[in-house]
């Protein structure tokens, strides 16, 4: 029972962390707007950020854990 609860708690923490990370990204994008960036520039920023995160994720060699 305790193990299940801890698993649930951990899952909730990671889900919440994803939300916090998204909030940080949104804040960065909104700051760009505030600094005068065009919608196209902000879209480009978000695509590049996404690709950078995916590249980092894809660079993990399986078996390193």
């Amino acid at each position, binding site marked *: 029972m305790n193990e299940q609860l801890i698993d649930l708690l951990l899952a909730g923490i*990671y*889900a*919440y962390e994803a939300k916090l990370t998204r909030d940080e990204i949104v*804040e960065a994008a909104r700051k760009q707007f505030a600094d005068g960036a065009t919608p196209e520039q902000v*879209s480009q920023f978000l695509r590049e950020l996404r690709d950078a995160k995916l590249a980092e994720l894809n660079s993990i060699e399986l078996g390193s854990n």
Partner: protein
Amino acid sequence: MKLILTLLCAIFAALALTGCPTQPIHDTKPETPQQAAKQALDEMNAAIAAAASTLLQAYKDGAVSDANLKDWRQTLNEAAEAADKAQALLDVGDLSTAQGKIAAAQALLNVAQKRLLAIKKKSSSLPEPIYI
């Protein structure tokens, strides 16, 4: 102790999934369907980046197995590919096909986000993802 853990679980899950309002990237309401589609793509790209970042951290923490990492990151890559195809379609003015691609990307992203809820602690054997 159990009560405290249960309450924490409920709070985190509720905040993560529904309870805590998320600020949109765009303050302006879209005036055209094209603008709406572009704004949806921005939100999606932000969400994919966040999910990738969290999955990366969970793997570094030892909370995600190699098998699940391989599977889950593939889903995120597919969501990104669908988003890029939607962007390319929007660029050439094919709104209806782009909207279909956006829906496909969103569905993949939803799967990826829900899989974060299947992360278990390091010592556990990982089950199949839980879909809710």
